[in-house]
């Protein structure tokens, strides 16, 4: 039986098909870099919570944002871009000054048995009319202040970036500068 040679399939249009698919995926792709500021909400407090711990005025960093997106930090009007430095100074604190937070000797791994950790608390209150953009800016600056301080400490103590530290060391650094941002229920102050 004479075997007929099958003609080879022309693959010339393969590129076209592939291109078509490629363009489809190019168009539908959204390089989703999904990220944002991660926060932990406080749980709803138990009823009749009476023995609220007293917090001294000097340990609280008070931030108010009004409906016109103006920022009041410790009684002073301020721009958002200035907030980071002021917050850093407060969080880090200084034993020589009595307007900055007190220290509490804490037992920390890597840092020693009585390492002074500042008792800082940041209190943030905004109006219901504050824009979300402003709110995020303030949150961002506060997180940045903590991150900067942790970074500095990691460099000083371990000589590497905070993000490259081992888990235990990172936890220790985090305990020196714990994020304590307390958000009060917003008020309707109006304009």
């Amino acid at each position, binding site marked *: 039986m004479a075997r007929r040679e099958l003609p080879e399939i022309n693959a010339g249009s393969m590129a076209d098909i592939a291109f078509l698919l490629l363009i489809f995926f190019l168009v539908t792709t959204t390089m989703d870099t999904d990220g944002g*500021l991660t926060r932990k909400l406080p749980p709803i407090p138990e009823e009749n919570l009476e023995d609220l711990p007293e917090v001294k005025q000097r340990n609280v960093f008070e931030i108010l944002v009004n409906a016109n997106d103006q920022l009041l930090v410790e009684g002073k009007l301020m721009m958002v871009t200035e907030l980071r430095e002021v917050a850093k100074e407060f969080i880090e604190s200084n034993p020589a000054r009595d307007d900055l937070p007190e220290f509490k000797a804490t037992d920390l791994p890597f840092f020693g048995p009585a390492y002074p950790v500042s008792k800082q608390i940041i209190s943030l209150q905004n109006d219901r009319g504050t824009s979300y953009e402003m709110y995020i800016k303030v949150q961002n600056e506060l997180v940045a202040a903590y991150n900067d301080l942790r970074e500095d400490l990691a460099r000083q103590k371990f000589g590497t970036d905070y993000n490259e530290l081992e888990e235990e060391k990172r936890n220790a650094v985090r305990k020196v500068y714990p994020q304590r941002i307390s958000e009060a229920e917003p008020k309707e102050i109006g304009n």
Partner: protein
Amino acid sequence: MSKFKKKEGNRQPGISTASLPDIVFMLLFFFMVTTVMREVDLLVEVTTPNATEITKLENKALVSYIYIGKPMGSLKKTLGEEPRIQLNDAFATKNDIIQWVEMEKNRRNEAEITRITWSMKVDSDTKMGIVTDVKQELRKANALKINYSSREVDKITN
């Protein structure tokens, strides 16, 4: 004449395009792998604010999204400009949130429930009032790990 002929004989061969499909396929696979198809149809306009201290959301399966913003262009006529909450594919009010949180929790394994991140995609023009209401509802529903979705920039301005 002889000059002409010589030139013709020396002509460089055309570049082979035989490997073109391979290159295209390579690109194709790259995009196929990285593509994330949008799961929900957005009913609200969301332009997330800028921030510098971004943490990436790693496990997409453990993220539930809440959208808040003005209704989309064509819906504006009937719904107005007031910011609205969108959960999954439909508009919702803040009273629906607790139930929705329960539904989202039921979709996951028991062990994963505490690891769910509740990503809030909120338009930057929105006022904090509605956002606070949503946060309050999330607290009531014990959905505490939240993420304010934002775009990464190098520096924020006033």
